[in-house]
């Protein structure tokens, strides 16, 4: 797995680590049960702060991509269909919110939107 830390963009370092490990997991480059480098060693190898690396791992654990076994290290979590579903639901919700933001400008009511959605899904 490659992790590239760039100082050129404004993306916080912990997000860069989070994003790169996450995409390695989603693309199956890292497989279920694979051992991740220890927080301390990863930080020292990348020459970044231990605290920042820990923050990235904490986020990955919170979002269910990795799990921490105390004394053993961090592993890639079971690919949980529930989690992937959750992520998709979140995305759908996000799109709904955008629709609700734009709708008042066209004077659309909720019923109008539901009607519109029905028509579109029948077309599909």
């Amino acid at each position: 797995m490659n992790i590239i830390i760039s100082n050129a963009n404004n993306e916080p370092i912990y997000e860069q680590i989070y994003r790169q490990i996450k995409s390695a997991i989603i693309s199956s480059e890292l497989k279920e049960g694979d051992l991740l480098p220890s927080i301390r060693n990863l930080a020292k190898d990348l020459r970044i702060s231990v605290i920042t690396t820990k923050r990235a791992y904490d986020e990955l654990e919170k979002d269910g991509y990795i799990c921490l076994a105390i004394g053993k290290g961090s592993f890639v979590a079971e690919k949980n269909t529930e989690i992937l579903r959750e992520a998709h639901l979140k995305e759908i919700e996000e799109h709904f919110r955008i629709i609700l933001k734009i709708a008042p400008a066209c004077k659309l009511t909720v019923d109008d939107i539901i009607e519109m959605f029905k028509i579109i899904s029948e077309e599909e």
Partner: protein
Amino acid sequence: MNSIEVKNLTKSFGDFTLKDLSFNVPSGTIMGLVGENGAGKSTAIKLIMNTLKADNGEVSVLGVSNLSKEFTNLKQDIGVVLDEAYFPEVLNAKNINNIMKLIYKNWNEDSYFEYIKKFSLPLTKIFKDFSRGMKMKLSIAVALSYNPKLLILDEATSGLDPMVRDEILDVFNDFTRDENHSILLSSHIISDLEKICDYICFIHKGKLLLVEEKDLLLEKYAVIKLAKNQLETLPKDSIVRKIRTSFGYEVLVQKDKINAAFRVENTRLEDIILLMVKEGV
């Protein structure tokens, strides 16, 4: 656990006062002390090691008060490197090994000669003929070879060339792979500290201006350059400090409080630190 705890440390001499210094160095981390020449960094380090008596305040190192009797024994666990290396001038690296062997109960001969080799130091040249870089590297080799848990370094990388500095920073970086190892280092070369520190403690004219996680500082603050009329469009509560320059303003802002439309400079630690104390025109 904290490897160093400093509470309300105060010391006055004549016209200089180091006032109310408080900070902690969590175990397993690297704390950088930043400040201009004469800011009080070396005074702070001397107070921590109790080679200078504090007027007020408390210090505990590796869980032991620096005023207690145990602190003398504890020094076997603390590696200290000051900005000047003091070894007898006629000794060479081999002689120094023979002496240190008798002083430190945890002296590790193999590790010492490994560092000597790693730093390309000569074995038989006498100390007097060492360059400044070689002297510093020898001090660091000695400090690391009695297996300390804590390293305290005062301007250990100043006056060295970038290659040697980088080599030394690498060694410090490796030292903290062990989570029981911590480092407190002072420097006025902010880019060095930016490279390896987990936390930054900024002292200016004897006063503590900030203690913060380094990456949070870089995430939280940014420098913006503006003309006067643009300055008024900036939310008041986002401004940490503004400096008038000859042609406009340089403003230190909290990133999360400004509109994304403002062009934020690619901000380094040095820019943030300098803007906090710089005088305008």
